[in-house]
């Protein structure tokens, strides 16, 4: 479960996030749309306890991330746009390392290969060094790492950018599976149609504020696009949000 309570962040005089209150329960996913600088990445950074909120709080599975940064990350998975792995290690070795970091030393090689398989990476690929991996393959390792650490909350920052359609589709399916299995997902994206596919709620952010909150079942893709573009109009959109 991911929860933001009046979460606010100023960088100096610049307001990056203003009184965000959302709750993403098990099996739910919130897809945040917004221009660059709207506050999407700041929201994710606040959930990761990488920055301190000016006011309010962020909770992961009930742990306040500022009060218990390590405990809150125990079952939290973070997948950025560019998943960085160690190129001289194989996919399996990277996974083993990431699992150990989160305290899961009990996984056998077969278990780890199983996680990779479930994320869409077969064994021969998993045993190759990551130096030759595509972006999509790296993301699969990151998903496998989330499975290995039994993550129940996911923070995804533009994970679909730059993926070819097949890889993006495969990745979306894996995320949908995870959500169905009870994961709480916060996804920051520019991709309206993937947001429609994945989100149980769609939020539109502008200048650090959540200006729209929509049920994807109640709008079509074309309607969402229109709402989004209208939200962005008005001069301020994406112009003054500070670091996102």
């Amino acid at each position, binding site marked *: 479960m991911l929860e933001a309570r009046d979460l606010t962040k100023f960088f100096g005089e610049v307001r990056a996030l203003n009184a965000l209150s959302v709750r993403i329960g098990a099996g739910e996913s919130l897809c945040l749309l917004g221009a660059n600088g709207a506050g999407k990445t700041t929201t994710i950074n606040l959930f*990761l306890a990488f920055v301190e909120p000016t006011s309010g709080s962020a909770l992961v599975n009930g742990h306040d991330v500022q009060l218990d940064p390590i405990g809150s990350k125990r079952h939290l998975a973070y997948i950025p746009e560019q998943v960085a792995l160690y190129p001289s290690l194989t996919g399996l070795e990277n996974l083993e390392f990431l699992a150990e970091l989160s305290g899961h030393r009990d996984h056998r090689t077969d278990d780890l290969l199983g996680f990779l398989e479930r994320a869409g990476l077969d064994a021969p690929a998993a045993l190759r060094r990551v130096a030759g991996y595509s972006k999509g393959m790296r993301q699969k390792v990151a998903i496998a790492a989330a499975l290995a650490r039994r993550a129940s909350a996911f923070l995804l920052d533009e994970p679909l950018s730059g993926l070819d359609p097949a890889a993006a589709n495969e990745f979306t399916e894996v995320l949908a599976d995870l959500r169905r299995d009870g994961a709480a997902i916060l996804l920051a994206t520019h991709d309206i149609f993937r947001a429609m596919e994945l989100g149980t709620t769609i939020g539109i952010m502008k200048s650090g504020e959540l200006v729209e909150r929509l049920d994807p079942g109640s709008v079509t893709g074309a309607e969402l696009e229109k709402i989004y573009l209208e939200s962005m109009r008005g001069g301020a959109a994406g112009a003054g949000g500070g670091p996102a």
Partner: protein
Amino acid sequence: MIRAIARKELVQYWRDGRVVTVFGIVALLGLAATVTGWSAVSAMERERASAVAMDREIWDTQGLKNPHTAAHFSRYAFQPTFNLAVFDPGLTDYVGNAIWLEAHYRDPAALRPVEDAVEIQRIAQLNPAWVIQVFGPLLIFILLYGAVAAERESGTLRQLLAAGMRPVSLLLGKAVSAFSLTGLLVFGVLLGSAFLMSAEGIERLPDTGLRTAALAALYLVYLAIFVFLALGVSALSSRSRTALAGLMGIWIVATILGPRIGPDVAGALAPAPSAPEFAARLDQEGADPFWGAGEEAVQRRQRVMDAALAEYGVETVEELPINYDGYLLQASEEFANGVFDTMYAELWGGYERQHAIARGFALVSPTIAAQNVSMALAGTGLHAYRHFADEAEEFRREFVLLLNQEMIDHGGADGYAYVSGNGFWRQNPDFEYAAPGIGEAVRGVWADVIILLLWLAIAIAVAALGVRRGFLGEMAA
């Protein structure tokens, strides 16, 4: 977590051809230096054994001679090159290991060349200790310059932090991996040296086991300083290239410039006398005031004669039951000994001042402090040579007394015409040097130990600063 990070690092090192190559080169250097050290020590010991035997034979077979003339014919005190010189020869190649034992003269051979007293502290030759002192830090810097900075550049740092990794765990994991590799180098070189040190024909220093353990501890502390410095600099640098440049600067100052500039400055600020100048002073001040034609010398000799006459209760020298020439020679010897004590105290005081100035540079170069402690533990430092020189001088005085006493007791009225033969020479003892134990050996280097511990504290503080500040920017990115 620390174990996982350390293991991952070691696997990466292993697969990184550059790291394997650099480690291999340094290990080969260590091996070559160890074998070279053993070969040099073995050769020196063979030469010493041969010289000792020859010296004895020449002494024993010198034939009929006045004992005091024999005291000028003289013998040598040879210092063994002990086993730990294989690991750290220290000043071995810069000072003599034989002292000429002559009447009326204290040979400064152990300090030769006296004008190079500064030079003798400038150790820059291929030996196992030097390889660790210079290449150990270089290896550490090559392993660790990207410890945090490269993780930041590649984006892995942000993900590791997101996975709940504590910054301090990352630093400790990296420290353990670099430490295990460089520790392997230290123990490899020490074990190799220990194996070769035990070879036949090489004399053991007292407390060799304890000294070897202390050397291992010394170098682990020394390398830990560079490990923590590297981690701190890497964490505080925005890019790995910047970290590498900074660390190379530290390496050059600490291991190359500091140990070279320190003694130069010390030599300029507290110059030592030149060898000919010092030898001339020894001759002049030890002999002239006793044997010269000046009033002071005449009176001094008169006082000796008066004392002899009073001691034996006679009126004239001719009535003395002893050989008066021998008596006078021994009196001159005792006079000269007092002069030598003063002059050598000044000389050693000068060296101590130089040493203290050079040690000041340890504040910018922990290598200087490590070298001082290492030489002390290996029994090859300045204090070890002073111990040997003082022991040799003590023996010289006893030996000259023995010869003069022979002349005094048995020379009667023969004066300088009295001669002894091979039977007497064969009874004379050899100089046998007993090196001090570890307690005595390290007495002069406690300041260096404290400086090293201070450096370790500073390095840990730099790493801690890296933990506090070096990760903040990353998190906010």
